[in-house]
């Protein structure tokens, strides 16, 4: 870790004005501090946004839910409103990391945490994502890597919140020196083909100032499942969120997003399409699960993920039928 300067910002404006040169935003600091200790980055200034007022609210308005970027994962997992209406979001927040981390980790930081690829996280490997020539995972240890869109760089996106948020069709508000813009989460994340050195489009002088989740259609339920190697202290090996709008036991519309599957949260479009208009049962769930893996290109060590995804996609769909 290097020496750095520390600034406490009291307002969004103040934070933005400090974000020049080699400065970075610090929210909970969970991911950022790791990156500093791992020697991946050496910023000159940390701009602490934790004390900016008003960025830690959860509010429901006419058009849906607004989540401040400083809302912690712990709060998201316990918030009554979120639990009742946006169940999968609370589940994803509650299953992430550990109780201690959830108390520190913020929603904004969660969306912006950097990938967990071993090679990316080791200073000694100058990989493509760090401006190098190779993706070491492609012929190396790739058991935790992507099974879709993994030709250039095989990272998986690590954020658990992104999975339900994308399934709900959320948007983020980005505020920078040139003003604010609102982007669909689906366009916020970028693939390696678009830009291999980043996971999203946020500019160095921008903050996430709000996350907006649209109002849900009636009779919509959501479910999130995380499969990990252990019960706590770990990112998912595979995770999924299924949001289903139903009439009786017929599915009107399905939104299914996979985490830890690709460099971005991965929409399982074929699975979604296959469920529309169908009765939700073992058979339709199994078919959707199978389709969710269509087109997957597993690497040498991660073929097992297909089986795991199929199992959890199926279970996530069936859980709603039974709930």
């Amino acid at each position, binding site marked *: 870790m290097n020496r750095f300067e520390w600034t406490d910002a009291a307002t969004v404006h103040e934070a933005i004005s400090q974000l020049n040169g080699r400065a970075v935003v610090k929210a909970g600091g969970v991911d950022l501090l790791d990156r500093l200790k791992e020697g991946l980055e050496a910023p000159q200034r940390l701009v602490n946004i934790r004390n900016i007022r008003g960025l830690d609210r959860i509010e429901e308005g006419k058009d849906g839910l607004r989540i401040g970027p400083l809302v912690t994962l712990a709060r998201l997992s316990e918030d009554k409103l979120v639990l009742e209406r946006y169940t999968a979001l609370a589940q994803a927040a509650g299953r992430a990391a550990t109780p201690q981390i959830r108390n520190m980790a913020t929603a904004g930081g969660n969306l912006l945490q950097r990938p967990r690829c071993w090679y990316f996280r080791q200073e000694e490997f100058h990989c493509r994502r760090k401006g190098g020539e190779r993706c070491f995972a492609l012929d190396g240890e790739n058991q935790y890597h992507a099974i879709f869109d993994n030709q250039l760089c095989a990272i998986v996106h690590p954020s658990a919140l992104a999975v339900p948020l994308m399934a709900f069709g959320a948007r983020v508000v980005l505020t920078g020196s040139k003003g604010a813009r609102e982007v669909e989460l689906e366009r916020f994340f970028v693939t390696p083909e678009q830009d291999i050195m980043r996971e999203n489009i946020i500019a160095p002088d921008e903050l996430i100032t709000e996350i907006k989740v649209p109002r849900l259609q009636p009779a919509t339920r959501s479910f999130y499942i995380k499969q990990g190697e252990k019960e706590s202290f770990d990112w998912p090996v595979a995770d999924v969120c299924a949001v289903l709008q139903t009439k009786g036991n017929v599915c009107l519309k399905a939104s299914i997003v996979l985490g830890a599957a690709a460099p971005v949260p991965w929409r399982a479009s074929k699975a979604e399409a296959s469920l529309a208009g169908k009765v939700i049962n073992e058979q339709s769930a199994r078919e959707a699960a199978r389709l969710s893996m269509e087109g997957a290109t597993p690497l040498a060590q991660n073929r097992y993920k297909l*089986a*795991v995804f199929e199992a959890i996609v199926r279970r996530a769909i069936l859980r709603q039928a039974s709930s």
Partner: protein
Amino acid sequence: MQTRFIGKPMPRKEGREKVTGRARYIDDITMPGMLFGATVRSPVPRGRIKEIRFDPQIPWDEFTIVTAQDVPGSNYVALIVNDQPYLADRLVNHAEEPVLLLAHTDKYLLEEARRAVRLEIEPLPPVFTLDESDEKKEIIWGEDNVFKSFLVEKGNVDDVWAGADFIVEGEYRTGAQEQLYIETNGVIAVANPEEGVTVWGSMQCPYYVHKALIKLFNLPEDKIRVVQTETGGGFGGKEEYPSMIAGHAALLAWKSGKPVKIIYDRAEDMAATTKRHPSRTRHRTAVTRDGRLLGMEIDFVVDGGAYATLSAVVLSRGTIHAAGPYNCPNVRIRSRAVATNVPPHGAFRGFGAPQSIFALERHMNKVARAVGLSPEEFRRRNFIREGETTATSQVIREAVDMQRLVERAFELSDYRDKQERFARENESARVKRGVGFASFMHGAGFTGSGEKYLQSIVGAEATPEGRVRILAANTEIGQGTNTIFAQIAAEALGLDFEQIEVAQPDTANVPNSGPTVASRTTMIVGKLVESAALSLRQTLQNSKLLADSYSPEDFSRACRDYLAKYGQLKSFSQYKQPAEIDWDDEKYRGDAYGAFAWAVYVAEVSVDTLTFEARVEDFVAVQEVGRVINPTMAAGQIEGGVAQGIGYTLFENVVWRGGRMINNQMTNYIIPTTADIPPIRVHFEEMPYEHGPGGAKGIGELPMDGAAPAILNAIENATGLELNQIPLMPEQLMEAFRGEHA
């Protein structure tokens, strides 16, 4: 026997300090003018050092730089064989091998400087696995890559094959495992020609470090002082390695003339320090139709890494435990520790036994199946009994009853019921369940004549406050040494628990009571604590200051009076081997251990046939360990060991690439959390051991032995899959399933 402290859950002596954060660990300590030290390590597994280049960006003249040329004495870590240099000179034999040391007052600049040293190393062909090493295509150590080999012979195994009804063979493998103590390795050293060398640090064995520093600096004994500071866990990982890091800090201190602190960060600690030896065991077993063992031939190989370190002793324990608690007339065990170009593997709880016991207890299930008996019935017919002999021809002189332990464990775990119910339910279930067990023993104390050579000494001293202070080099590393010693001494003297103090292990103040390893601290050293305490009392009584019957207050007063009169009161007690222990080091035959702890562990598992997760759902640990001194701590030892064993079996996967551990972070070297550990139900059968303090035997390592085979036996019971390698990851389970059901 009525006791006041033995068998009671006395609170941890240093517990209050620890939970209130007052305990001072090495990184809490700082000294005026102190520098920080860092180690430049080889990125290459084997090669010739051609050049060391220093990036001109760094102000090198501000740094203390130490290379092999700066070593004042001999450049070897003194342990068993002089092969491991403190700093590589011309050759490197493993990645992460220390080549150069740096010190500076500024930690951040130091870090930059470490990155700015470039080692030009001409690579030589490396050997990475024990199989490659065993094949000897490339010789990387000595004449044949073999650090040590043993041959244990009992009866004549060559004659049994012809008459056997069944001959069963199998091969079993275990992987490396990281100790992952909470506190990483760290030391502070002060060293100069006038005062000699003093090192404070996190360690298990101050006198090992002491011995190593004498050679490194070529100084007399009394010029070297080693002090253990509060230590956050060891598990064997701080048995031999502290000699290395202590030497490094001392070399930097010697050259700079300033105190030097070296603390490894987690990544460095995981990549560079020792791990459990990977192993391969081959079994060939002859049995009769009615399930009696006729002969066992065992070939046991461990991967020692690049230098000999403690591999010979790890191998020894693994070898002796390889045939387990069974009565077999003909046994041959051949074993060897071989060299590879990876960082040396070292001591880790169990010390070779978990590896060979894993193999044996998987193999016993296989033999049972071949004979057509249940695992428990087959074992019942072969369990060793009093008067019978182990593989080393040691006559068992205690009334051991393994069958009773089995019954107890089955009762507590509902084994038979579950087995039947699961078999029925598994037919249609996606999540298959199963139960399995392992039966095993673990020898306490050093092997064979080890304790005789150690000649451990413990002292007891009267303090000015009228208390008794125990003087021993055995360290509190979380396992309860301080508390147990205090219980033993208070019991022996009839004093209050608070009247006993335990001195900080400091080679300037405490005698050499041997290392804190091998489940020996309670059984061997505890007994010396008892006799030193009693001899202190004898002195008081001989001097007429203390009557035959006395109160705790009388005792305190007597101590104070004695000190007023004579200045000091210390008595010492030295280990004497019980007369009946007879061991032949040449033939590897005889009484390998003074006592064994005996155990039966039962695991219940579930295996998800869609996600290929295997979970341990319930665990029962039944053991006979002599008298239990502190039931809370003893249960804690068992639970902790079982948890570590579950990690060893299903979670902890050291991933190697080019001879380096590449998942050397806690986010990718996965250990189980409390949420992954089932209820562990611990049960002790108590049969006092005559030579142990209060009847105790050692238990520290025992619980590490049983989890792995019990779990894989349970997975076999759940799925029918015969899996013989750990760690067992979901990917392998998936492949096994697909292979089986394809």
